[in-house]
């Protein structure tokens, strides 16, 4: 049933996950279609003053090509997914804050919360290319958050900004019972795991 394969390299597949070569599309709502003219990315919240980039400014930022494994809480894992994007470290450069958390917010209203320590130090990106092509809207384009060391619901599609917060504020799935942190290697799928 389905297109799941036997585990090729067990050490790369977190507990309870199945490998897939597809890239399933999961969504809690209709695909937003924000034109690049309207698009902007904002880092705001508990900082001195917000920082914003237009699309043109954003793709002119230093970018990286990365290859990472991704793990969805619905149990599929995809190895060696290739992306291009801006490191969140770059976006937070020069930002002074006492915040220890942030909320990623998106077109369509989706949110997810993260600890600052989960996004800095080369752990996360805002990605705008997948597999060498501009990121398709159904996969979160023009740009999505990419936090591969956590379950993929934290890699918010259609991301438009990061709001730094002093307190941890559960995002969409977190407030419906999904785990606040979401480490696939500890199988933190649901609250209480």
């Amino acid at each position, binding site marked *: 049933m389905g297109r799941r394969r036997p585990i090729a390299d067990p050490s790369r597949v977190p507990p309870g996950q199945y490998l897939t070569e597809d890239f399933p599309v999961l*969504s*809690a*709502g*209709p695909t937003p279609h924000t034109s690049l003219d309207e698009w902007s990315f904002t880092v705001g919240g508990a900082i001195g003053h917000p920082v914003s980039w237009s699309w043109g400014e954003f793709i002119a930022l230093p970018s990286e090509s990365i290859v990472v494994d991704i793990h969805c809480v619905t149990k599929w894992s995809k190895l060696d997914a290739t992306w291009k994007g801006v490191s969140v470290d770059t976006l937070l450069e020069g930002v002074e804050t006492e915040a220890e958390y942030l909320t990623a917010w998106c077109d369509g*209203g989706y949110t997810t919360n993260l600890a600052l320590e989960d996004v800095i130090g080369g752990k996360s990106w805002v990605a705008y290319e997948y597999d060498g092509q501009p990121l398709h809207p159904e996969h979160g384009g023009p740009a999505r958050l990419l936090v591969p060391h956590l379950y993929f619901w934290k890699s918010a599609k259609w991301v438009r900004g990061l709001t730094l917060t002093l307190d941890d504020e559960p995002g969409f799935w977190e407030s*419906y*019972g999904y785990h606040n942190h979401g480490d696939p290697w500890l199988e933190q799928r649901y609250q209480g795991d």
Partner: protein
Amino acid sequence: MDALDGNAIAGELFEHFGVEMTSARGSCAHCGATTQIAELRVYARAPGTVARCQGCGNVVMVLTVIGETRRVDHQSFQLPQRPGQSSQCHD
């Protein structure tokens, strides 16, 4: 991706409420529109299933399976106090 509609969650809602719910009318807490559950926009390919108001697009219902627990959160979709009564109406 294309949405389904409330017919797609009929089984889950029957299990939760104990009665047939697709014809039940409720109102969206965001915009006030009244609609039958069958006409909600349902997004079923996600960590949970999300039903949205077909008028304003806001989330009105979220169905999750958390471990062994099946939950139906319909805080944003105001149903009559006795869902059983409304779902037995035939138009």
